């Protein structure tokens, strides 16, 4: 096994410096990996026979020599830093509001240059196809006429916005900011689990995690050629600017629901990093189809809005009239072309579970290319062959209602009782169009620091794609990690955390 020899070790500090090969530590046997279990899922760090992969060798060498106390100290320093920066969300219980940090794990997740190349090409291809698809269904509806997708799936979707029909969108870019969730199959292939085309969040954690991991492992970081991600806010700014013809002299604002929103830190962070105004609905007003902010010196025109509120709340005159977050008249100003909104309204129609299943076909249809990144295998119960397969294999599949999210209207076959499966089968048979099924998904595992050692935890990967005049992926991602042993739930509301993602330059 090849170990890194660090030319420069001054950053390490403390007595635990070992230049040259460290001990050989085997997962499941030697500390700090004594409780590291390798199972069926793909492991990011170790091969099946327990050897560290080449991309992890430097990190492994460092970990095998680092005292757990020292790791604990660094972990605490990092949590302290998050708390002080205010990277927190609020939990309400017993009438008391407690602030918690979003848990972060020190150990980076490493993605090789070759893997990233495929992800980058795959997601670029995917966002092109999805934007062409959105332009199509809000204009001619060619894809529906050609029978690639059933009409009812689009026109019946609660995320389809009739108000957007025929409205030109700059560069045909409906989705300007996309965060797609990728997972690794048992064979190590990255596949797409979900596209987030509405208001994806998490990019500020990607950047905050980088600060933390770089400080925790400075020499390893330096020795590995990790690609930088710090220019994300600049790229975002360029993307937003490209939406208007005035490029330079353009006034941009980030529209937030306000300080009580769980992603408020991110909204403020992005506004600060881009050097643009952070506004709430109450700061904006529309007159004669022009959007203004109210400033101390008077009204100031706004040209581009990066909105972090859902379609439904953007404009109470057009969408939900009980929304206090949005701006009355905003949609008409948008329709008049006086303000650009990113993402465009109505993008949610393209990221629901049923349309997801069609994305590979959409790529072939619009681009005449084979998808570079596959979907998780998905059976559409509306197709008779798939329906038969699903009903015959209910004990092996996860069945989901397409219109629901957050685990509602869902059957996890292997964990359900015979009776539950039979009941669910009836539901599916009576309304097959409403259901899809997928095999039980295994997420890959990655080394995660748990206090008294390093164990394997399940992770996913959310890269962020920017799409305006050009398409840009900053070489990094949010790696979400299920901190509970064995858990597959990476959501921060349910015990998930995150960690830095190192994309290597070669």
């Amino acid at each position, binding site marked *: 096994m090849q170990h890194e020899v660090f030319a420069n070790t001054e950053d390490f500090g403390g007595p635990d410096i070992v230049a040259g090969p460290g001990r050989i530590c085997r997962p499941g046997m030697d500390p700090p990996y004594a409780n590291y279990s390798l199972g069926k899922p793909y492991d990011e760090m170790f091969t099946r026979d327990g050897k560290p992969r080449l991309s992890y060798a430097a990190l492994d060498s460092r970990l095998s020599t680092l005292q757990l106390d020292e790791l604990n100290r660094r972990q605490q320093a990092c949590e302290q830093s998050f708390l002080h*920066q205010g990277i927190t969300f609020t939990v309400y219980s017993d009438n008391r509001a407690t602030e918690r940090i979003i848990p972060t794990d020190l150990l980076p997740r490493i993605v090789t240059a070759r893997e990233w190349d495929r992800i980058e090409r795959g997601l670029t291809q995917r966002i092109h196809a999805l934007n062409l698809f959105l332009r199509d269904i809000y204009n001619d509806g060619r894809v529906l006429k050609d029978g690639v997708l059933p009409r009812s799936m689009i026109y019946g979707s609660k995320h389809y916005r009739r108000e957007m029909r025929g409205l030109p969108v700059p560069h045909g870019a409906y989705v300007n900011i996309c965060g797609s969730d990728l997972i690794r199959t048992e064979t190590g292939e990255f596949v797409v689990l979900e596209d987030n085309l509405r208001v994806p969040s998490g990019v500020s954690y990607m950047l905050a995690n980088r600060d933390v991991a770089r400080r925790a492992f400075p020499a390893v970081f330096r020795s590995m050629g990790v690609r930088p991600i710090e220019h994300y806010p600049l790229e975002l700014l360029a993307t937003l600017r490209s939406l208007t013809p005035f490029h330079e002299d353009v006034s941009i604002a980030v529209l937030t629901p306000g300080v009580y929103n769980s992603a408020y830190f991110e909204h403020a962070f992005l506004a600060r990093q881009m050097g643009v105004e952070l506004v709430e609905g109450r700061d904006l007003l529309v007159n004669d189809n022009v959007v203004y902010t*109210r400033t101390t010196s008077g009204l100031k025109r706004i040209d581009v809005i990066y909105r972090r509120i859902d379609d439904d709340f953007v404009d109470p005159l057009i969408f939900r009239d009980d929304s206090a977050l949005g701006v009355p008249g905003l949609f008409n100003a948008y329709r008049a072309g006086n303000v650009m909104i990113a993402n465009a309204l109505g993008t949610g129609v393209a990221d629901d579970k049923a349309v997801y299943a069609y994305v590979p076909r959409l790529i072939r249809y619009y681009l005449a290319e084979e998808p570079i990144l596959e979907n998780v295998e998905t059976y559409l119960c509306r197709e008779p062959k798939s329906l038969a397969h699903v009903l015959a294999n209910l004990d092996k599949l996860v069945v989901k209602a397409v219109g629901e999210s957050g685990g509602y209207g869902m059957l996890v076959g292997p964990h359900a009782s015979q009776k539950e499966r039979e009941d669910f089968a009836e539901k599916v048979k009576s309304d097959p169009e409403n259901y899809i099924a997928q095999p039980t998904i295994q997420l890959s595992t990655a080394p995660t620091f748990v206090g008294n050692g390093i164990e394997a935890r399940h992770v996913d990967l959310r890269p962020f794609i920017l799409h305006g005049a050009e398409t840009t992926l900053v070489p990094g991602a949010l790696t979400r990690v299920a901190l509970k042993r064995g858990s597959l739930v990476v959501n921060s509301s349910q015990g998930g955390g995150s960690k830095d993602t190192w994309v290597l330059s070669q």
Partner: protein
Amino acid sequence: MLSRVADSLYWMSRYIERAEHTARLIAVKLDSMVEQTPEDASASWARVIAALTGEKVVPLSHMDAFAITRALAFDRENENSLITSLALARDNARQVREALSNEVWENLNRLYLRMAPVTMDSIWVHTPARLFREALEEMHALEGVTYSTLSHGEGWYFLELGRHIERVQQLGRLLDIHFAAAESENGPKYFDWLVLLKFCTAFEPYTKRYTASIRPQKIAEFLLFDTEFPHSICFSVDRMTDALARVAPGAPPARRAAVERLAGRLKAAVDFGQVDELMSGGVAAFIADITKQCEQIHKALYSAYITYGAETVL
């Protein structure tokens, strides 16, 4: 600058100033009470409570320092307590993260997170004043960090406005209570006048100016009219008028005029005030007038730059 941002900066700064004033009064009082008779200490506590809450307080024969400190410092139900002021300052700061430097936010956030879990029992066993002195040090650091990491543009001047309007009000109330009590039977004694100077971080600057001879009239003159000492009414009014001239640079002249007229009037009142005219009861009337003018400026500031109707500018 967004009107909402100006509003939050202004209030953030007012609450920090209020917190600092509260912490200083408590720290000085806890330190000084040991040198007083129970009666004098009680009368003095009553003045501190009145100064911080704006309520009339009749001194009891034995005031419970533990309970008073708890109420003034840590009672979240008390809208004037130290912890409430810090929490509100931080809430306002959080609303305008993008208008503050990282250093300003982190200093304020750290201070709040440090004070939030503190219990009376944990500080009372040792030197209770120490915690408040440390809080003061951190607030001074915050002030320095604000000065040196934030651009001295419009936002900074809204911070200045908040700080000095609040300071005039707090200082005014504190002086008012002391000078009103001067006439009464259990009024401030020599030691209380000394403590008053310490409440305003004014002891040393005062002695440099007037020697250690502590006389109420000189104290009034110093804290009302000194042009160089940062905790005098005159100094704060100076800063306020300066800041008012610099905010909302693009606002139409008509809207600016209303605010600047009021500021000019206040400045004249302070610049031409004479302490000999104020003794024997005149301090109260003078302070009442200054406080009222500050309230008018606050209202004019809001209607000119923050809550103005959009229809008036379209």
